[in-house]
């Protein structure tokens, strides 16, 4: 659900044992990492990077919309998001 992937029954049959196998392998990480180890998410300590607050041209709208699957009135078009009242 969270991944927004629809899978066929065949895919589920194939993937389920593979995912269990991969997770079982990955669980080794719990063998070594003690409580007092500081997690590392990045090779260099991250800080907020600010740029000068100066206007600059953005990419042309037509160019960006030209790559979209569906466009309506200069906007990206999607199927309805809220289900109809039953």
């Amino acid at each position, binding site marked *: 659900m969270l991944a927004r992937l629809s899978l066929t029954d065949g895919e589920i049959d194939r993937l389920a044992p593979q995912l269990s196998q991969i997770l079982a392998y990955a669980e080794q*990480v719990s063998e*070594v990492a003690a409580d007092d180890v500081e997690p590392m998410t990045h090779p260099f300590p991250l800080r907020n990077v600010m740029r000068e607050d100066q206007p600059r041209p953005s990419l042309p709208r037509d*160019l960006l919309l030209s*790559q979209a699957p569906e466009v309506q009135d200069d906007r990206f078009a999607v199927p309805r998001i809220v289900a109809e009242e039953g």
Partner: protein
Amino acid sequence: MSELVTKSAADLVALMESGEVSSREVVDAHLARIEEVDGHARPDGDLTESDVHAFLALTAEQARRHADDVDQRRATGHPLGPLAGVPLALKDVITMRGAPTTVGSRMLQGWEPPYDATVTTRLRAADIVVLGKTNMDEFAMGSSTENSAYGNTRNPWDLGRVPGGSSGGSAAAVAGLMAPLAIGTDTGGSIRQPAAVCGVVGAKPTYGAVSRYGLVAFASSLDQAGPFARTVEDAALLQAAIHGHDPLDSTSITQELPDLFADLRAGVDGLRIGVVTELQGDGYELGVEAAFRDSLARYEAMGAVISEVSLPHAPFGLPAYYLIAPSECSSNLARFDGVRYGNRVDAPTAEEMNAATRAAGFGPEVKRRIMIGTHALSSGYYDAYYLQASKVRRLIADDFVAAFDQVDVVVSPTSPTVAFPFGSKTADPIAMYLNDVATVPASLAGVPAISVPNGRDDAGLPVGLQIMAPLLRDDLMYRVAWALEQDLGLSPIPTGGNAVAVPQGV
């Protein structure tokens, strides 16, 4: 002028500067070579067993125009960069206007990026001529290029074997004499491992040295673009052309790297080289081990001090990597939802459209990693998986710091095996992941690492040595690699019964 395709980039520049050849002649020779051995232009089904298939798209017309422009400026005495007029193959994960960027996926089939990556901008500023976009594992996930949605790339040393991955197309283009230079990207070994099994040089710079702007993201805290070449000097020249701070990438480092050329030829006399205890032995093929021992003996004979060093947590690098990278991928690939770019599968509601689009657009390995990553980040499992893996990452980075207190660089075989036959590891994800066992520790720590050819196994297949240096010491990595390359004097031109055809007289 078919021998032009065997020349290094540095030699081609010398020939162009002396007026013996033009950039246009160099580019035409490489395009002719691609036409002869690559088969890129034919649809997937028509590729033959002798086609390397390194390229997914060629930009021949732009390349010829660019080459003519460089020639004209050279003729009028205009100052040019150190690699001006040299052709290059660009991995299809890096955006370039005027050509499709597919990332090896059906999801982005036909997409033309509206902007250039910073790497592309810098290549153009350096007047390096892009010949085309190269094949890769889908979204850079894989170690054999078999996960490409557009067919396999064949290893120029044995057309029945994989070129490694995920940058297999770039490695094969350079090994197959279709370009002297290529750009790849490396998240857990995707430059170094294909370089090793294709018998070329491939380097992952210090994390953050090369801008990620315009590099389609897989795992943002690990992804790093870098050079492929047939000589160490060429690889260093290419890195120097693309690295440097970029305000468009918030993880781009502001520190300047030391000059890569000041001590490139200084040798290794007196340098301390550490052999990583945990990255040898069980699981490494005999031919790989033999080449490794030979390299250590050569370094010792050149005056280096060889000792064993331990990276005690390195064995946990692979399990940590296969939680961290999928976690970041599951977040990064959420953007492929069928709304703003790429392909869409129609469905009655937006949510169903997202799910159907992603089901049709992603291949099996990408789906596996999205699901693993989503699971590892979900509440209830986050502490057991992602958090634990991030702690292991810290332990590995600390191991490197401790090792570099004792030695100047550490070395290991790049890959536990030589190039393997197609299909031999596709059914078992863990077997495929084990290709990265020696390369992921440097990725997790962010330190620079290079693979340099260090011999052949009994079957004549290439083997690579990995050299890992402290953060920001890319210069030291190239220096140690250069010394071995000079001492070995290996020819980079593929040989063997099932190798790609090489130009007559070479």
